[in-house]
């Protein structure tokens, strides 16, 4: 049963990473325009740098 001592922390940490990633997507405003996001995947030249073509 010693394996549990490894597996339990691993499962909790993995869950924590998932949660942090989800929280980041929320704070980053990735749910602000769900219709637009699903459409943008079809664009070949979608600009991921809204700050300008040769942005920072």
């Amino acid at each position, binding site marked *: *049963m010693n394996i*549990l001592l490894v597996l*339990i922390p691993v*499962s*909790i940490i993995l*869950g*924590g*990473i*998932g*949660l*942090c*990633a*989800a*929280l*980041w997507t*929320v*704070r*980053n*405003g*990735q*749910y*602000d*325009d*769900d*219709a*637009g*996001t699903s*459409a*943008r*995947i*079809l*664009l070949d*030249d*979608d*600009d*991921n*740098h*809204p*700050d*300008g*073509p040769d942005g*920072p």
Partner: protein
Amino acid sequence: MTTLSACPACAAAPMAERIASPRLETPDIILSLPTIHCAGCIAAVERSLRTLPGVTAARVNLSLKRVSVQTETLTDAALVTRLRDAGYEAHPLDRSVLDTGTDPEGQRLLVKLAVSGFAMMNVMLFSVAIWSGAADATRELFHMISAAISLPAVLFCGQPFFASAWSALRVRRLNMDVPISLAILLAAGMSLYEVLNHGRHAYFDAALSLTFFLLVGRYLDHRSRRAAHSAARDLAALEVHSALRLTQGNAQTVAVSELNVGDAILIPTGVRVPVDGTLLSLEASTDRAFLTGESDAVRSLMGAEVQAGEINLGAPFKVQATAVGADTTLRRVAAMVEIAENSRNSYTALADRAAAIYAPAVHLLAFVAFIGWAVIGGDIRQALNVAVAVLIITCPCALGLAVPAVSTAAIARLYSKGFLVKSGTALERLAETDTVMFDKTGTLTIPASKAVTDVLNTRQQAVARALAQSSTHPVSRAVLAALPAGDEPAVLSGVVEVAGRGVEGLSTEGLVQLGSGTWLGADFDGPGLRIGCAPAIALPLTETVRAGAQTAIDGLRAQGLRPAIISGDRLSAVTPLANALGIEDRQAGISATEKHVQLQTLAREGHRVLMVGDGLNDAAALAAAHASVAPSSALDAARNAADIVILNDSLAELPLLMSVARAATRLSKQNFAIAALYNLIAVPVALAGMATPLLAAIAMSVSSLTVLANAMRIRRVK
């Protein structure tokens, strides 16, 4: 994001954000793009704006149908022209009226949804181990870890329910959130007690999945409301918020909010008067359809009263303000609307009515189970366990999802068809109506949208077409709309638009002019055409029937509703329209107050009335009706009073609105029935003391998913 983070993903976030920031933090100009709908539109709009010198960044938001632009040198007019050339309609939005685009309430719900989701996944993982037979020390360890994860998660994520339940309890009422909060808290508390006493059953996963599913319902609800709300704000932000103030003869653009009583204001052609005032110019011709329902232009002479909301149809005129802002007649109507709305606020939503039956029944059932087991079995702990199992298994989560899932799907469907549902209970109320009252001017008809051009011969038509084509003024468009399509325009040279007067050019006959009667030197007021030295020909403006009006009335009648017209206009204007549309029940010359009184009388007779109107004279009636619809061209006050705004120009989809509303109510009730059916099977099991955490988890997820799937059927309503 400057805070230090404890996890790798958060630490990596700022870097990723720099690479792919999807937001413009402080846009200089926001434009509304009502016609965009696909990926191609996004690309075209962004490309045409970014290639414009002076624009540093442009980002389209497809959900809100807006584009945010960062520019230091360009004005909104330049951007609108650019987009029009690219084939997109654009309107500048007033940012002081607009919300900032961020949605703190929605973000808070999403954060809670994420926390409860991940906590549920982890706890469920341990629960599977327990259900598969983990025993003794292992089980206790898993229970302890589950408790450590779920207790903080439940307390954090359940806040929206606890707050709502508390506010209901404080005024001694029960709402849906009371049994929800009780189930969540008791499940978590009871499980903690069990774990500390080395018990076998813990409901941590049930408490978390309850929270998770309910938060899904809450978030769906919030999102559909916000979409409607922000679109309603867009409409408000489109209103004219600047005026031309005259100081020592110079016109200066100022915000309407900065105008004072006594200011002289210039009203250009086609613009709405922003204040109440007296006319300083010799004469003016205005459209008062919004205020009174009259379809003809009103001519006033120097010194006459002009009211906020009138639209200048003639030459520019000057007004001296006598009332501004909240003191104008326009705004005072808002007070009347508010009083009328109070009667509607007493309407109880379907979900609350269900909660009123459900909450006491469940509490009573759990209490009876507790007493029964305590008396018969004599074991308080066992009795409490059964009572908690009953509370969990009666599954408030299917009930909490039943209505929001249906209304979100319905509102999204209606939004794609051009309906903006502003009120949460609008669809339920709409489904109950049996009579439709239409206002005439501006609702069934579009005033001053067509000129009478029957008197023109072929040559005159060709000249009128050539002149009207060269201008975007509403009158030119009305003339163009009346001319037979496909004819060749006359060949003219040197066509120029004379601001506020008309269009002129040179032809073989000499000077040709299309413009206001006074400019042409004729004795009529409205637009006219003059060719060479011949006398000017009057082209009076008339109203046209709104697109889809006939379809809408036939469709609504087929659905069993009784259509009627109630108008402030003359009987001679109402009768032909009513005959054409086949509406027997018609009333003309009805004032705003009379409309309101008539609706109240109908309500007393037991009728539920759907009011469709656009004017200031309709606002009180819209608020007093059981449900109300306004076209997007309606006055601010009317749009605010209405439950639903039609965003496109046609009325043809009104019957669809009705069938979706009825289907939404039907599906909500079906959802309640499904939830009740699950309870019918699961409650006896729980009462018998045979409910296990596994059974609770299965019953909860399956009933929630069934309810969600049933709600999606609204997409197929025709």
